């Protein structure tokens, strides 16, 4: 099965038009000693067979339709309304490519424009791009953009240790060599050392541990933004977009660039991808922003239409002078995110965020009451929280798994001082029964 329509007579006619005898004549430019390797691949399957094989392979997994899930840590089990899949399932969207020819790509272009508008509304920022590969690469590009905003003069990036560990790892990979330094933010925040070499400060809110940073002007986010700006640096904030249905957007506490993982907005967990990176900034930095942008304009008849714009920032024009090599976005994932935000609307997104908040607090309260388990952290939290456990988290997760529950993220993986702690996540998908069952099993484990 190779989806090729040619009959033998088609091939013969085409070869005759070309003026060669055989198809092999088309490959004489390939050095003979390496031509036609024998590929050792499994024999071909019919559609029926491959679907049966894949179904069986997929059932070797413990999936979240058959398990209660309390795992988050950057990838979240949220409800995806049916309408979202039917929108992204339109093959006029998914079998198109980058809208290079706007006259026949208005569907993709307008959908991106609407997505950009909704991301601006959500984050409280002026401009949003068409998306990056994921939250981690958005963050890395935001750090590089901050250096570019200083015209390369500022070479230091300060990152909070409570930014997602894999985001920090990605940032390190993106900025190799001795040129840029990445240093850890030292808590408490009021003691940070911002200097003339600092390009940006990166924080996450809610942070990796689920905690919401306080808003007060002295020690909280507003004070932090003031300090960063006084030093001439930029404040970069990593967000969970669902939290913004309820909580103050970073645009209101002085963020210059907002990034985040867009997966919770209508995209399935998919074992880690494809996801999308949210990316938004202040208008004054618009021309330094990496990634695709769609803008509104008019056609020759004066009708509204949309085009890719500010392309002079991009690699296909600037080549080696480009500051980022990104040449696509995650268009279909952004389409899902846009459709999700429109489906949820202003009240629906708030309701999702509230359900997460209340259920997470209910779970946290119940677990904290079990002898041996303690909540870590004194700040308000959104949908995730840290608990210290009476036994190693891996053992607890094994016990939970045997009872049909996928437990929390083992924090010892990244934070040695939290090796007895796990990060639990509760969303609107978790029923009270599931939470009560979790608590029961944890009670048994604690004995």
């Amino acid at each position, binding site marked *: 099965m*190779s989806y090729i329509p040619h009959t033998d007579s088609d091939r013969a006619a085409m070869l005759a*038009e*070309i003026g060669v005898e055989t198809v092999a004549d088309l490959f004489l*430019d*390939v050095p003979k000693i*390496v031509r036609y390797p*024998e*590929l050792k691949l*499994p024999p*071909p399957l019919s559609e029926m067979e491959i679907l049966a094989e894949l*179904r*069986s392979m997929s*059932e*070797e997994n*413990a999936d979240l339709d058959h398990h209660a899930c309390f*795992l988050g840590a950057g*990838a979240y089990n949220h409800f995806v309304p049916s309408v979202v899949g039917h*929108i992204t399932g339109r093959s006029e*969207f*998914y*079998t*198109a490519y980058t809208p290079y*020819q706007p*006259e*026949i790509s*208005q*569907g993709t272009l307008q959908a991106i424009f609407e997505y*950009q508008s909704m991301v*601006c509304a959500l984050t409280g920022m002026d401009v949003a791009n*068409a998306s990056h590969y994921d*939250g981690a*690469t958005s963050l890395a590009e935001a750090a590089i953009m901050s250096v570019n905003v200083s015209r390369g003069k500022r070479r230091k990036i300060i990152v909070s240790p409570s930014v997602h560990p894999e*985001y920090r*790892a*990605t940032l390190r990979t993106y900025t190799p060599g001795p040129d840029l330094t990445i240093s850890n933010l030292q808590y408490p925040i009021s003691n940070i050392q911002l200097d003339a070499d600092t390009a940006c400060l990166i924080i996450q809110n809610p942070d990796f541990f689920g905690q919401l940073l306080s808003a007060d002007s002295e020690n909280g986010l507003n004070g932090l933004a003031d300090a960063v700006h006084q030093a001439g640096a930029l404040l970069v904030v990593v967000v969970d977009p669902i939290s913004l249905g309820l909580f103050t957007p970073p645009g209101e506490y002085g963020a210059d660039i907002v990034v985040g993982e867009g997966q919770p907005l209508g995209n*399935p967990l*998919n074992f*880690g*991808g494809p996801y999308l990176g949210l990316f938004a900034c202040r208008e004054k930095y*618009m021309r330094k922003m990496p990634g695709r*942008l*769609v803008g509104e*304009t008019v*056609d020759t*008849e004066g*009708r509204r239409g949309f*085009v890719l*714009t500010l392309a002079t920032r991009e690699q296909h024009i600037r080549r*080696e002078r480009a500051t980022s*090599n*990104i040449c696509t976005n*995650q*268009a279909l994932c952004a389409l899902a995110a846009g459709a999700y935000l*429109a*489906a*949820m609307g202003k009240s*629906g997104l708030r309701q*999702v965020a509230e359900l997460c908040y*209340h259920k997470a607090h209910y779970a946290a309260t119940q677990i904290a009451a079990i002898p041996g388990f303690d909540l870590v952290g004194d700040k308000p939290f959104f949908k995730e929280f840290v608990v210290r456990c009476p036994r190693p988290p891996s053992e607890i997760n094994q016990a939970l*798994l045997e009872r049909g529950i996928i437990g929390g993220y083992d924090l010892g993986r990244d934070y040695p001082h939290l090796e007895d702690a796990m990060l639990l996540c509760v969303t609107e998908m978790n029923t009270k029964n599931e939470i009560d069952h979790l608590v029961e099993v944890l009670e048994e484990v604690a004995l």
Partner: protein
Amino acid sequence: MTEPLIFEISSPGRKAVFLPELDVPAAELPAELLREDLSLPEVSEVDLMRHYVHLSQLNHAVDTGFYPLGSCTMKYNPKVNEEAAKLPGFTRTHPYQDHCTVQGDLKLMYELQEYLKEIGGFAGISLQPAAGAHGEFTGILMMRAYHEERGDTRRTKVLIPDSAHGTNPASSAMSGYQVVEIKSDQRGNVNLEALRAYCDDTVVGLMLTNPNTLGLFDEHVLEVSEIVHHCGGLMFGDGANMNSILGIARPGELGIDVMMFNLHKTFSTPHGGGGPGSGPVGASERLAKYLPGPIVVKVERETSNVKRETSNVKRKISNFQPPTSNLQPYHLKMPSASIGRVKAFYGNFGVFIKAYTYIRMLGAAGLRQVSEDAVLAANYLLARLREVYPLPYDRICKHECVLSGHLPQAPDVHTLDIAKRLMDYGFHPPTIYFPLIVPEALMIEPTETESKETLDAFAEAMLRIAEEAQDNPDLLHRAPHTTPVTRLDEVRAARHPRLRWKPV
């Protein structure tokens, strides 16, 4: 034919989604942290669906018509791929689940790694990069890591032929390297003399797109690799054009040390309107240890020794049974000298499923057939058009052919006009003005999935347009005439950027 913005069909109080009631006691909300307003649209489900269906109808797509966009391999996307990727056993797994609970996911990734190794002739594969350009950047970082580990720090130059993709220079520059352009020779190959002149101990490596953006296989590829390797440099392969050499040549055997694949081009995963793609990177023996990770490894064990305890959870539909210990074969592991991770998690898993499905359905013979017919189609179009459209490099091409839209009989007509007029005939235009070394370039990649009738219809439209260019150039200048909108004012969009809808 335009569609209102979603915000323009919004009405306060409308809802498309109804969520369950809160089933636990409400906690106190931190009043000082709450936001005041959120200007998202408020629409009903039917209006939402119609809005997006209307938008979708404004697109040209592979499923609506021929899409010969050069360098992008817009082949048909088999529908079984989509069904496979929607299996809830895959979509409903979390990336941080314990390895023993996601053996199906890991097995699929492991097998895909193995297939790509075999197809590309590589010792190792990382599936992590999310797109072709991401894979390029990854490759450059690996080359850098290789030289650094050897203490070979004088190397700062990346050689890039003038027939390379525009992302190649950008990826090199992003890594802080100096880009040196190498001219092509008369036949569109890398100019060996020019190459020799630049090859010294300051060269990081060469980024080779082969077949290149002229659609030509470099006839001296083995010499090119030898010259670069001889000066201590490495060969990076841009795998964007793999659709012409499946089962024909293995990049690893052409001397390529590191290469990115494009699953969304070669392996039939849809382009999604600009993503998600997937850009796995393959590496030779000496570079494999620098691959980004984690990657999937298989631990061979005697399965008879692995005992599974009967679980006290009732078997549901899933085959999954919780194992008593971590004795499963597939694991995630960082390569020994990895450059680190280039994104969170393991790559675009949903895309892997589609590429895996395609490779399993085609097998080795089917893949070679793909490349043979893709090359056949491109040469057929070349043969049909060469009398009318100037051909800068007169050779058998591979998966795409590059012609010039500069027609001697119609000097006022440009490639852009020809491209726009093609839309009136129902075709997506080829890639235009690229590669830069061909003036008024038209880069045409038909792929193997288009019938001879479709190719003929396209060729006839191109020939007809060439006549129109002579007889009625204004028709082309004002084209397209039949699309939802006419030519758009891109200058206005850039000078007065309107990048979002704002509440009135």
